[in-house]
């Protein structure tokens, strides 16, 4: 028994490297080094002892490691080894005090941190250059080592077919990578997200301060506190930057109003803390706790929004599915096609929807009544629905939604089929391609604009990500949503 090598390497690789690092630095003696060695050995032993089943074994391994605090013990010992090497906690012998040497040591440390930042980005860029197809081979090897645990029968033909599919996909990706290298490159994203120069600039400012004529170590240490330069060098600017990017991402995806409002409040909080903060940089813990309070306040309303929209969407989909199941086009329609295999299984699923989704719909409507004293029609005045339409996320067209509310809903009665004329109307919607929201493409434009703003004009398309500047051809005749007419007209009638 043992964890798969890929899993064990992933979890223990960092610690193996840390042990190797101290050995290469000649720090391989003393109690703390021995603690590192013993702790890593214990982790290796647990990896050997673990169940090879990925889910069971990894969970067991992590539980053991956490309960024995092995990561913490190892990290702690590692810190002490390095600290001792640097002559850490011992007070300097001030009889030999050499201010110039000490200041140089501090500035060299800062120069080293700049090197580390630059190296980190270069390492990420080098890693990114590796071919994506290599990961297919790694995945295939993992599959073949653990096929039984993953539930495959390696004696069956389907297993060979599955391996061949992996090879085929790898070949297709390899070809695509050659023809469209930018689809797979993250170089531009790495350049932007590392914010290398923004992190380095305050460190360089500190070094420049340290190099001023007449500078001493204590003066340097005092000035960086007084000017807030120590906070800047910790990367405090990145906090606000992160909040701004988060808002933009949420405004592109628009999951719900509450989450967007919450993120705007995070930024307002940061900006409100700046004037009163020593040296204009809010204390990171105080900001974090104040931010948590905002999250705590919003959490119930976010939970309510998600709970309600989830049920509303299911109700609309159930009603739609019930009437679609009766049409002559059902076999080729979503949600059955292409997800349910053709033939028997798909026919069975459609027959079930025809017979039972009216009964299922009624129970689901009863549930939103029990929970929130709402019925089906109340959905269409609710802020969650309005949000979905305004953000172009709602998948149905207005005309089809009106059909569902005014004509299908009233006749959705358990044990009864819809009348022939309703079925024929539904078929006509399908033939004329009037069911889907023609403005859904605007979501793709939001994603594209948000992405390009962050990573450069044209980058979204360069990465091969799909977007549309207008509706599909077949949707060009579908009227766009007009909530005013919908709510003042249709809902009043129904």
């Amino acid at each position, binding site marked *: 028994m043992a964890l798969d090598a890929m899993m064990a390497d992933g979890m223990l690789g960092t610690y193996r490297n840390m042990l190797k690092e101290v050995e290469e630095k000649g720090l391989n003696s003393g109690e703390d080094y021995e603690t590192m060695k013993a702790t890593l050995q214990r982790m290796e032993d647990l990896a050997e002892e673990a169940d090879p089943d990925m889910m069971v074994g990894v969970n067991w391994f992590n539980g053991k490691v956490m309960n024995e605090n092995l*990561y913490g013990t190892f990290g702690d010992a590692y810190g002490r080894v390095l600290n001792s090497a640097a002559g850490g906690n011992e007070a300097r012998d001030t009889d030999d005090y050499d201010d110039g040497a000490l200041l140089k040591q501090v500035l060299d440390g800062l120069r080293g941190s700049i090197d580390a930042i630059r190296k980190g980005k270069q390492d990420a860029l080098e890693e990114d250059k590796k071919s994506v197809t290599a990961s297919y081979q790694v995945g295939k090897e993992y599959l073949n080592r653990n096929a039984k645990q993953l539930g495959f029968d390696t004696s069956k033909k389907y297993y060979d077919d599955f391996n061949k599919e992996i090879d085929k996909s790898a070949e297709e990706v390899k070809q695509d990578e050659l023809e469209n290298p930018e689809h797979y490159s993250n170089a531009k994203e790495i350049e932007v997200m590392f914010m290398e120069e923004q992190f380095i600039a305050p460190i360089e400012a500190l070094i420049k301060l340290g190099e001023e004529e007449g500078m001493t170590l204590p003066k340097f240490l005092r000035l960086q506190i007084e000017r807030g330069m120590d906070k800047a060098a910790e990367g405090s600017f990145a906090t606000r930057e992160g909040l701004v990017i988060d808002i933009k991402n949420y405004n592109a995806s628009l999951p719900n109003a509450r989450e967007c409002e919450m993120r705007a409040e995070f930024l307002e909080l940061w900006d409100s803390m700046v004037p009163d903060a020593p040296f204009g940089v809010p204390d990171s813990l105080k900001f974090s706790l104040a931010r948590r309070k905002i999250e705590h306040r919003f959490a119930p309303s976010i939970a309510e929004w998600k709970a309600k929209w989830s049920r509303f969407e299911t109700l609309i989909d159930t009603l739609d599915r019930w009437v679609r199941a009766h049409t002559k086009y059902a076999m080729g329609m979503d949600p059955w096609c292409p997800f349910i295999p053709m033939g028997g299984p798909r026919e069975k699923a459609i027959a079930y929807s025809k017979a039972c989704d009216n009964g299922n719909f009624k129970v689901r409507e009863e549930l939103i009544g029990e929970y929130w004293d709402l019925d089906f029609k109340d959905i269409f005045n609710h802020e969650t629905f309005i949000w979905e339409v305004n953000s172009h996320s709602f998948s149905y067209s207005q005309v089809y939604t009106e059909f569902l509310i005014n004509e299908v809903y009233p006749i959705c009665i358990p044990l009864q089929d819809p009348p022939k004329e309703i079925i024929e109307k539904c078929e006509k919607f399908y033939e004329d391609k009037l069911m889907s929201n023609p403005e859904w493409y605007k979501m793709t434009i939001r994603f594209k604009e948000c992405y390009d703003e962050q990573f450069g004009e044209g980058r979204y398309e360069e990465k091969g990500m799909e977007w549309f500047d207008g509706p599909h051809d077949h949707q060009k005749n579908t009227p766009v949503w007009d909530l005013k007419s919908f709510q003042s007209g249709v809902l009043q009638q129904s």
Partner: protein
Amino acid sequence: MSDILQEYKDYYNVRAKRYEGDPDYPKSYEAEKALADAMNSCSELSEFKDKLGNLNELSAVARILDTSLMEQKHFNELKEYVRELGPKRILEKCQGQQGVTEAITTVQEESNKNSVEISMDEIQREFGDWFIFESYEVSSRAIVPSAYQQEHKNDAEAAKKELLKRYEALEADMQPWEDGWRMNPDINYEDRHFRLLPYPKESIDNRRAQAKDWTGR
């Protein structure tokens, strides 16, 4: 020529000033003040070595105590009593500690332990999975043709078994972390969970009764 001793005094005074008057960092201020006082009492730099002692380590420990108290108060105010356990234990164990390494080890151990406690607490939200209960409601209450009634009865029974299976799987997953751990659906009535259940109490009580009936927990 610079007066190194005075410059060190100025530096340590600024360090203390960072926390002066800040009600959230009283111990940090005291500790930094002690460092500044030690430095200010020197008439030669060489005296500082002896006067420093472990004041710098105590300053680091003080910072841990202040931040842990801030977190503990914060979680207590929000009635997040499980999240409060981590900083509470850190405070108890770090009081009186003299070395920063020991304090950091305590912080790591207790933070790890608390993250496991939080996971064990929060996976029980919504009685494990509210949607399983709804599947049961639909299957057991929907009026369907006689040809499908047995299938619906089977689906309703399957929903009950699915909840039990889910509870058993979660309990099995948690054994390596805490031997003997069991699901406790009653915790859904505690404020940190209850406030996130957007359903009337009657519905919540109904789910609790169903969970007990189907799983014995």
